[in-house]
C-alpha cells in the first residue's frame, strides 16, 4: 500500500512539474513562434503584393478584430503594413472566398488611397488546367491599380477578364478581392496610426 501511494505521489509531482515547465516555455516562445511562422509561411505571398518598402511588414503587423463568424466568435485578422520613410503606403492582408473546389485564399495589397497594389493567390483547390490557372500572372496582374468599382468580371461591367472555363473560380477571386477592399476603409486608420 505504501508503495502505491509513493508511486502515485512521485508520478504526480513529475507530471505536474513537467506541465508547469511546458506551459511556461510555451508562453515565453509565443511571440517569436508566431513571428517565424508568419515569416516563413506567409511572407512569400506578402512580398508578392507589396513593393518599394523599407520596413519589415511581418514585424510591424497589426492584429484587429473584424466582425464575427457564424458562431458569434470575433474574427482576428492580421494586417501587414508596408512603410516607406515611416509612412504606410500599402497594407497587405488575406481574404478568401469559396471557389469551385473549396476555399481560395488570396493575399491582397491595398494602397493607402484605396486602389489595389497587387493580388496573389495563396492557396486553392481548383481544377488543374482550369480554375488552377488563377495563379498565373496574367490573371492576377489584371487587378493591379484597379479601384473598388472596377473590380468585377468583364462580363458584368468590370475590368477583370475571367479565365475561360473557370467562371466560378474567377468570380470567387473577384469576390475575395472586393471583400478585402470593402474592409479596407474600416481598418485603414487603425493600421496606419500604429
Amino acid at each position: 500500500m505504501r508503495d502505491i501511494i509513493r508511486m502515485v505521489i512521485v508520478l504526480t509531482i513529475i507530471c505536474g512539474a513537467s506541465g508547469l515547465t511546458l506551459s511556461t516555455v510555451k508562453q515565453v516562445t509565443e511571440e517569436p513562434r508566431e513571428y517565424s511562422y508568419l515569416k516563413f509561411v506567409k511572407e512569400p505571398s506578402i512580398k508578392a503584393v507589396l513593393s518599394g518598402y523599407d520596413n519589415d511588414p511581418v514585424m510591424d503587423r497589426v492584429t484587429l478584430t473584424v466582425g464575427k463568424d457564424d458562431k458569434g466568435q470575433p474574427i482576428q485578422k492580421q494586417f501587414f503594413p508596408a512603410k516607406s520613410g515611416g509612412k504606410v503606403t500599402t497594407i497587405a492582408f488575406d481574404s478568401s472566398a469559396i471557389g469551385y473546389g473549396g476555399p481560395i485564399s488570396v493575399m491582397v495589397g491595398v494602397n493607402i488611397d484605396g486602389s489595389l497594389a497587387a493580388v496573389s493567390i495563396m492557396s486553392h483547390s481548383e481544377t488543374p488546367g482550369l480554375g488552377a490557372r488563377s495563379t498565373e500572372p496574367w490573371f492576377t496582374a489584371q487587378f493591379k491599380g484597379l479601384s473598388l468599382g472596377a473590380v468585377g468580371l468583364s462580363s458584368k461591367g468590370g475590368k477583370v477578364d475571367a479565365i475561360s472555363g473557370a467562371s466560378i473560380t474567377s468570380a470567387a477571386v473577384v469576390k475575395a478581392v472586393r471583400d478585402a477592399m470593402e474592409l479596407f476603409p474600416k481598418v485603414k486608420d487603425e493600421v496606419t496610426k500604429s
Partner: protein
Amino acid sequence: MSLATEFTKGLWKEIPPFRLVLGLCPTLAVTTAAKNGIGMGLATTFVLVCSNILVSLLRKFIPSKVRIASYIVIIASFVVIVELAMQAYFYSLYQILGIFIPLIVVNCIVLGRAEAFASKNSVVYSVADGLGMGLGFTASLTVLGSIRELLGAGNLFGAHVLWSSFEPFTFMVKAPGAFVCLGFLLGFMNIIGTKK
C-alpha cells in the same frame, strides 16, 4: 571508471548508430544533407544531456516500478521544449526535420541511456555519458549526411563543392540511398574494428 572514458565511449567505442545500431529511424530519414544531420544531432544531444541530468538526480526518488513512465515524461518534456524553441528560432530547420523532432521521445538512445546509465550513476558521470553519446550521434548523422549530400547533390553544407559537370545521383538523397550508405559505413566501421 573515469570521466574521460565515459565521455569518449560514445564518440567511438559505442558510437550510437554505428556500434549500438540504435536510433536508426532519424538516422536514415533526416540525413539528406549535412546541416540536417547536425540539427537533428544537436537537438537529440540537448534532450539526452538534460534527461540524463534529471534522471540521475531523481534516481533515488523514483520507485523502480514506475521508472519507465517517469523517464518518458521527463524525456517528452525536454523534446517539447526543443520543438517550441526550434519553431521560435530555427523555423527553416524545423520545417525540414518536422515530425522527427517529436519522435526524439521514442529514440531508443535517449531512453536507453536513462535506463542503462543515468539511473545508476551520479550526475557528473551522466552528463559526460549523455554528452559523449549525443556528440557521437551528431557526428554520425553529419558524416552520413555529408556523404549523401555530396553524392546526391554535389553540395556540402549547402555550398556547391564538386566540379560543375558532376551529375548528382538523386538515388543517394532518397530512402534507398540512406540504407546503402549506412550499410557501407557500418561495414567500414567493422573492418576498422576487427583489425585491432
